[in-house]
């Protein structure tokens, strides 16, 4: 049994979760070209290595973010979407350390490389 650490519900069997796929930025539907929309809908980086991805805890219908290595199947950390956004902003403003820690769980390894 593999355990995924849900930011809302704590550590649960991974069979309770639905994979949402690798995270990608959505273009503005009002201004996006067909090519951009095609890319967003269908095309995948399909990265071999560390990825940031969506997961859903199905019983509570709760979406959150995980970082996982797709070669070793190691879950590096999980966090709320808010924590993920806060970290992105912190990284964008040039801070070495992320401003927000993951809400719950996850290991600290590689926490600065998101």
């Amino acid at each position: 049994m593999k355990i995924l650490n849900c930011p809302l519900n704590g550590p649960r069997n991974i069979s309770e979760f639905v994979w949402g796929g690798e995270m990608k930025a959505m273009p503005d539907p009002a201004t996006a070209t067909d090519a951009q929309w095609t890319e967003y809908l269908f095309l995948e980086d399909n990265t071999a290595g560390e990825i940031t991805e969506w997961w859903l805890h199905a019983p509570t219908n709760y979406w959150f973010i995980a970082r996982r290595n797709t070669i070793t199947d190691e879950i590096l950390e999980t966090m709320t979407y808010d924590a993920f956004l806060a970290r992105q902003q912190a990284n964008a403003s040039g801070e070495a350390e992320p401003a927000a820690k993951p809400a719950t769980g996850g290991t600290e390894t590689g926490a600065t490389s998101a």
Partner: protein
Amino acid sequence: MPFALLKYALSREHPDDPHFRWKPDLKKTYDVIIIGAGGHGLAAAYHLAKDHGITNIAVLEKGWLAGGNTARNTTIVRANYLTPEGVAFYKESVELFRTLSNELDINVMYSERGHFTLAHTDAAMRTARWRAEVNKHMGVNSEVIDAAEVKRICPTMNVTDEARYPVLGALYHPPGAIARHDAVAWGYAKEAMKRGVEVHTQTEVKKILIENGRAIGVETNRGVIHAAKVMQAVAGSSSHVARMAGLKLPIKTIPLQACVSEPVKPILDQIVVSGSLHVYISQSARGEMVMGGATDAYGLYSSRSTLDFKESLMGHMLELFPFMGELRILRQWAGMADMTPDFSPVMGLTPVENYYIDAGWGTWGFKATPVCGKRMAECVATGRQPDLLKPFALSRFNTFDLVGEKGAASVGH
């Protein structure tokens, strides 16, 4: 015959030519480079040589001959798909499979068993009816049958309503078959090499050389080689190789696990599939029960094994075939499957000139080996998308013209 055997027993000479005529060195240039020496790549090389007279071909393989998903599938061949485009394509594959042993002069042990897609819900019965009508319209032998008829054809199956999900009926496809997967790939390799095609294993492509938007060759761990045309057929690593050519694919790599039991005497003639229960099973020629289920729940580049897979598979399998309670699992493995959004493959031309793609084979690649090889060879030789492959072009995603085969391509839905 006995005298001939005796003669060879006393001779130092081996009676047959060696199967594979390996050439040790890479040339500087070829007409065609095919990346990936699995069933698909080898079949394309064979048809390029036989049908189009192009023999100056190198098939490059990072690992060993047919050691990827060609060696990891569960060998089912069938044509009972859902869309007219899919049915037409797989129908040609079934026809080619039927004569493949003669064509390749090797016994591929093609064995027509009859194929059940079981239905446990009204919705599944509707899909079965839909598939049967499309199949019949396209000249493929499929029929919807009820549970009593399932029981008559396959007496070992439990179709009582004591099961958690009782069998209501099935889509029955009599031409459904199994074949010996390794022999298919070896046959194509043997016949291609006989015609001058070179197969180089342990040869990893590191870079695809592109000049002015056209592919001109590849860089390998054994040096640079040039070619007029380059084709990739590397299930599981499709995104990785395509990225070297500057292409981004509509593919997620997700593992598919399978297993076989210890061999027993023949007891199950048919191939039995249940989409609702996420299981499929057939008995191989040497008596092993070959079993598989849905793809894993999330993407991964690994062939590791999980207990979840065996638990869910066996739970449902025992309901269908209670006699299997005494069987032991002999072997378990996994392959990395290219899953596309519409459960259809991606074949043919790409935005890069002279670069051809054969990818997106998810959990349905082995059954298409002959037709894909034949039509991809036509595509590479002529530089045009053959009619049969037009619906499966990479460009269908740009025109939102998908070929939805989710209801027929796999059990993972």
